[in-house]
């Protein structure tokens, strides 16, 4: 049976089980896809898996809209890891969520240059190993001066649409420092280098799971995941922390902050 049919079956089983009031997944809309909440009894014929679209943030919105509702979601590896980091920061309650775990195909992995294309358990699909991002390796061969030049050139295209922030499941602050004139002068295009982009980069440390949605959303084609992948690796080397690996690991910046303030 093809993969999407297996997902539809798994979603149907979850809906029929009565454990959840609905399941969030993608639905075919025109040539693309869009998030859709499937309810028990709904036809699942137009449920689809691709093109990928970030579901964790949508799930968060749905859960917040009705504090009593329990929902399911079709989750790829990056989406499961995204939910785990959100849960650590009290953005979602994992007890109200049931996941249908989906492993990505080799083609999907290559599309995202993904190093970790499978969830912690697999309901549908076969595990394929991750791949390294060639752009990251290329970037590491550059000198520091060349790197600065590279990012200057990339960020010069930015039109400050805030798409990278808005689409990011880990960007949930009620007030965003990127909108603070003290740090980022408002109304300027491209936004001041490097404050806008590097502030955002710092804020992804210990949170970014590499779902690549920021880069997919970017109308200026800025290779943001190169930057975030390097930061993620630094966090792993320095603190042994891997975002999204488990619910129990505490995020290093939170732990360090608590230690420093004596709590």
């Amino acid at each position, binding site marked *: 049976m093809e993969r999407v049919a297996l997902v539809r079956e798994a979603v149907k089983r979850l809906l029929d089980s009565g454990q959840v009031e609905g399941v969030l997944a993608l639905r075919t809309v025109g040539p693309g896809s869009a998030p859709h909440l499937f309810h028990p009894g709904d036809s699942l014929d137009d449920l689809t898996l691709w093109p990928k679209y970030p579901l964790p943030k949508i799930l968060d919105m749905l859960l917040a809209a009705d504090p009593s509702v329990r929902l399911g979601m079709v989750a790829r590896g990056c989406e499961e890891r995204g939910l785990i980091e959100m849960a650590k920061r009290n953005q979602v309650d994992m007890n109200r969520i049931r996941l249908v775990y989906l492993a990505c195909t080799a083609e999907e992995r290559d599309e995202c240059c993904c190093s970790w294309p499978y969830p912690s358990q697999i309901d549908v699909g076969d595990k394929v190993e991750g791949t390294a991002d060639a752009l990251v390796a290329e970037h590491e061969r550059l000198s520091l001066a060349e790197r600065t030049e590279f990012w200057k050139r990339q960020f*010069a295209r930015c*039109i400050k649409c805030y798409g990278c922030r808005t689409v990011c499941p880990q960007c949930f602050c009620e007030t965003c420092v990127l909108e603070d004139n003290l740090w980022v002068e408002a109304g300027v*295009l491209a936004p001041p280098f490097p404050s806008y982009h590097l502030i955002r980069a710092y804020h992804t440390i210990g949170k970014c799971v590499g779902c690549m949605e920021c880069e997919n959303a970017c109308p200026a*084609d800025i290779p943001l995941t190169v930057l975030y992948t390097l930061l993620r690796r630094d966090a792993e080397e320095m603190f042994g922390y891997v975002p999204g690996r488990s619910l129990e690991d505490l995020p290093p910046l939170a732990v360090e902050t608590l230690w420093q303030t004596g709590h």
Partner: protein
Amino acid sequence: MTNSIPEFDETDCFLITGSNTTEAHPLVATHVLRAQRRGAKVIVVDPRRTQIARLADLYLRQRPGTDVAWLNGLMHVIIQEGMYDAEFVESRTEGFEELKAAVAEYTPERVEAITGIPAADLVTAARIYAQAGRAAILYTMGITQHTTGVDNVLSCANLAMLTGHIGRPGTGVNPLRGQNNVQGACDMGALPNVYPGYQPVTSEAVQAKFQEAWGYAPPLRAGLTVTEMTDAAYHGAVKALYIMAENPMVSDPDLNHVRAALERCDFLVVQDIFPTETAEFADVVLPGVSFAEKEGTFTNTERRIQRVRQAIPPLGDARPDWQIICGLAQRMVGMQPTREGRFAGWEYCSPAEIMAEAAALTPSYGGVTYERLEQGSLQWPVPTPDHPGTPYLHKDRFTRGLGRFTAVAYKEPAELPDEEYPFLLTTGRMMFHYHTGSMTRRSEKLEREVPEGYVEISPEDAGRLGLGKSARVRVISRRGTIETRAWITRRVPPGTVFIPFHFAEAAANLLTNPALDPIAKIPEYKVAAVRLERVA
């Protein structure tokens, strides 16, 4: 646009002029910059060093209002160096000898004297554009909003025909249209001289066709353009105005004159989604609906007809525009003798039925139906139900057959700086606000980004006037005065200042010159003379 946005992926050279592309058409800019990364050359010609100018491979800064001169200069170099497409010129065009004679005097040195563009840069630009496999011209209001707007557009067309950069994918002359559906509004005949599909009102055959369909057709002469209407209202020749989704009290030139014109109207109707500065003068306000509250189609800049679907019911007393217009029309028709005609009744159940009428009467929309649009968008011309649509125009022939070169001579703008008004004012747009701000200035996020207007002024000029960062400044023209904030920046050259027109409380259009292009009647928003005073 003669061509389509996705075709830019095949373009080798972009000549972008009078377009602040990353701010005003960011998704078009995405395609341009993607092409640049795979090796395409980007030439930007603009008085302001905008983001796209900074990203360009070659940036030429012309004195505002000198576009015919540098365009003629490019053609001069291309002909001199034998880089024109002789075969295309021979087989597809006429009037080449006249063009050649007209551009002969526009040597790079003379062009430099007129425009300020270094002669060597002009030659480089000419070579890159002419020798590219596929070159596309992109322009917006920086080309059109001049008293020589038509001349500027003709010059762009001359250049594309001379080099054969038209009628193939990834080339063409591409005016980027500013609003999601301004192309559609023009297609449907919201112009004083044409019926839907650009069928001329001066043609008896066309008149007869609409007489038969509607049981009525307007006389065989063009009506008034929007800029002429204001003047006619001022002089009493127009007694009543019905203004839909337009805010001339911010967007038209010389707002003091507009105000007087609106005050003199016996009757003013304004139909819009928010109360606007114009609605303050209205006798009747009719609430229309936003994109989210209606069914219909939008036709975008690349002639692409797409469905828009209703997401929420109309709010408050608002109604879809077509229902308001039909309701009014039925009452008016009811006061007159019965009319015979297939579409005389103004009775429709849905926008789909209106599209059926449009398709029946508009050859370029002939094959458009809602059934087809449900399967995907269509690019006109779509003459028949089995026609797939047209990604690019002028493939084997131009609309009139041969493409006609029009020899054009450079003319100065209507008003230039002098001793009393020593600065050249040019106006335009920015990323964070849209048009008159009737929508964007109600957005908290966008207001936070840019809450007030400003005047861009060079560090040299700011120094001379003693203006510090964000200093308050008065800007004065022969028509009005505004007070605003100085933004000291190298985006503008010394002698030129720029004001975005989105801000009613410091409206750039109190200052602008209402001088019109003699043919298109578009005002010269891009050049006026002003003086600046520091506010103590």
